[in-house]
């Protein structure tokens, strides 16, 4: 009994949960799905039957080792290695299965990952994230790891190994548009952020200096935040359309009731509150003694702001920027509804055609982009927070 207690104490709790979920999904749910064309419902196929004998053995062994590492390993590096190896083996097995299932030269059938694949992948991904958290890499290391991971995924997708998968089929069909929508997505997300920064930073500084303004400004911006995005697009449609009609010069610049203009304006408005609020909070936390000393030593007001207040408030401001960027990257997707473009265009087109693969072609890059933005900005925030107050 004593022995049992010791053993149970050694088993990792999160590891147990994730291995349980992953193993259940992997064994019970379909791993790979065959569809006769892109909109027909799929029929599950047994992935192991599609692999050569050694391939099945490698997949089974790798996933078992990953599970063992997740359950028993103390060393974060070992856990990470297990999870990454599991992800690679799973992805390669899927590619192999798709290759076998696709008749030569057939562009109509679609081979998609099944629910079991996705859940196992998520479990492995969470294991890898947890292992990374335990390793506590510094800000620069985290960005490097992100870069390596993205690079590896791009290399793998570019190798052609995965071209038989349904989502890559959709990509092949839409390759030209994909780059264009990606550019538009980034333009909308970052453009509205930059415009919001130009307005929100000064506004935050003014709200900090003039407490009487604070409640009013933050209240108004809060109100904007509560308007659902689709409603805001709708609200902007009429005035922008009227503007475009009244001033043809504006119309020539691309302003119209639908399209990128209302999307950019809506994103800009949503971006204001997090930046203003975090600027006010950050400036409010700057030590009054430091500001008094700075003034007492002969800093001008502008120098106090530039050399003392803003540097000390920077971590809080960056946190606001992170919120805005992640929020914008997600929200640009909705902009496709009013013709704003971006990855959302694939999502809504896919919904319209009941082509789930096309939805994924829009959704997955959006998620990856938001995740990458969060990692990079978190790293930046950490770098500026190196000096505690």
């Amino acid at each position, binding site marked *: 009994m004593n022995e049992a207690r010791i053993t149970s104490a050694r088993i990792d709790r999160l590891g147990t949960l994730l291995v349980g979920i992953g193993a259940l999904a992997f064994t019970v749910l379909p791993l790979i799905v065959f569809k006769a064309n892109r909109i027909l419902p799929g029929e599950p196929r047994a992935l192991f039957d599609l692999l050569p004998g050694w391939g099945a053995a490698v997949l089974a062994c790798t996933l078992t080792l990953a599970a063992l590492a997740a359950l028993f390993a103390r060393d974060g590096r070992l856990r990470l290695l297990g999870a990454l190896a599991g992800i690679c083996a799973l992805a390669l097995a899927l590619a192999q299965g798709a290759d076998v299932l696709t008749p030569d030269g057939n562009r109509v059938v679609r081979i998609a990952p099944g629910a079991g694949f996705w859940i196992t992948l998520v479990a492995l991904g969470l294991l890898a994230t947890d292992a990374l958290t335990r390793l506590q890499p510094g800000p620069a290391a985290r960005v490097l790891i992100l870069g390596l991971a993205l690079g590896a995924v791009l290399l793998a997708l570019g190798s052609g190994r995965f071209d038989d998968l349904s989502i890559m089929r959709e990509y092949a069909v839409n390759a030209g548009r994909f780059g264009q929508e990606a550019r538009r997505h980034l333009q909308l997300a970052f453009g509205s952020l930059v415009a919001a920064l130009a307005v929100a930073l000064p506004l935050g500084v003014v709200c900090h200096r003039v407490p009487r303004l604070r409640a009013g400004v933050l209240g108004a911006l809060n109100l904007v935040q509560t308007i659902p995005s689709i409603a805001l697009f709708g609200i902007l449609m009429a005035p922008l359309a009227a503007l475009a009609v009244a001033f043809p010069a504006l119309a020539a610049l691309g302003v119209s009731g639908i399209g990128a203009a209302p999307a950019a304006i809506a994103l800009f408005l949503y971006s204001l509150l997090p930046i203003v609020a975090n600027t006010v909070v950050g400036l409010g936390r700057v*030590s009054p*003694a430091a500001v*008094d000393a700075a003034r007492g030593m002969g800093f001008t007001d502008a120098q106090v702001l530039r050399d003392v207040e803003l540097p*000390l408030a920077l971590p809080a401001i960056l946190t606001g920027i992170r919120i805005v960027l992640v929020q914008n990257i997600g929200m640009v997707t909705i902009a496709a509804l009013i013709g704003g473009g971006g990855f959302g265009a694939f999502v809504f087109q896919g919904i319209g055609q009941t082509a789930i693969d096309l939805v994924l072609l829009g959704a997955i890059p959006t998620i990856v982009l938001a995740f990458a933005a969060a990692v990079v900005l978190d790293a930046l925030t950490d770098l500026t927070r190196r000096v505690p107050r």
Partner: protein
Amino acid sequence: MIQIEKLCKQYGDNRVVVDVSMVIEPRTITTIVGTSGSGKSTLLRMINRLVEPTSGRVLIDGNDTMAEPAHLLRRRIGYAIQGLGLFPHRTVAENVATVPRLLGWTQDRIDARVDELLRLFQLEPAAYAAKFPHELSGGQQQRVGVARALAAKPNVLLMDEPFGALDPIIRAKAQEDLLGVQRKLGTTVILVTHDIDEAFRLGDRVAVMSQGRLLQHDRPEALITRPADPFVSQLIGAGDRSLKLLSLVNASSAAEPGAVEGPSVAATASLRDVLSELLWRGSTQANVLGEDGAIAGHVQLASILARGRSAS
């Protein structure tokens, strides 16, 4: 010399500083003491115009402080406050270099000055220059704060409760350091405190403030022997005023020539310390040792007692 003439500060109907006039001699330490809300900090902050006076004026070496923009005036006046206000995002060296940098000194001159000041405050530059304030102890941070205030060689140093956050032992050391540095540099120091003992210990002159008014501005012993106002006597405390008086006199300045039988005391010990030593030993006389450790003279219990007696 700093001349404060009929200085007033009023917020609405609230008169914070009322008609204060005083002259501060160069190369001295003046302490301003009072309860909280007495207007002592406001008076100090009007000297470098962190608070603009409602009326009256301040002359520094004959020049009206209103004659130039406030930020230029402040760069010529040292400023150290409670809680220090060290910049947490800048290193010790960068903190000390703040005002020289504002004044546009060359990098070489700044580096040399920072080195000199850190050494003066017993902070070895190699070990401390690149550290951040949060990596220092409270006493070290305090020294950096004063070093920063003195960086551009100001003639005048304003200090607002600079030792308020220190524990008693470090506080005594910091006071000692300030006295040493002030003697060495000849800076005119104006220091605000609510601690009457600190005011007496540091001040060549002590100014007592209450409810915005300057009640008395004089040598410490004059405050004890000739208080100008009941509040001054109350602040000093009747109970140990004779001991306070004794604490203002060094053994060396009270010594008579010749060696005697009895314990030995240091020349820098106050008569209060000597009295305590005599009581402890049951002796009536003590030798005063010079800086070289040799007997420089002696003091008698009777003469100490005579000095502790009211002058009137």
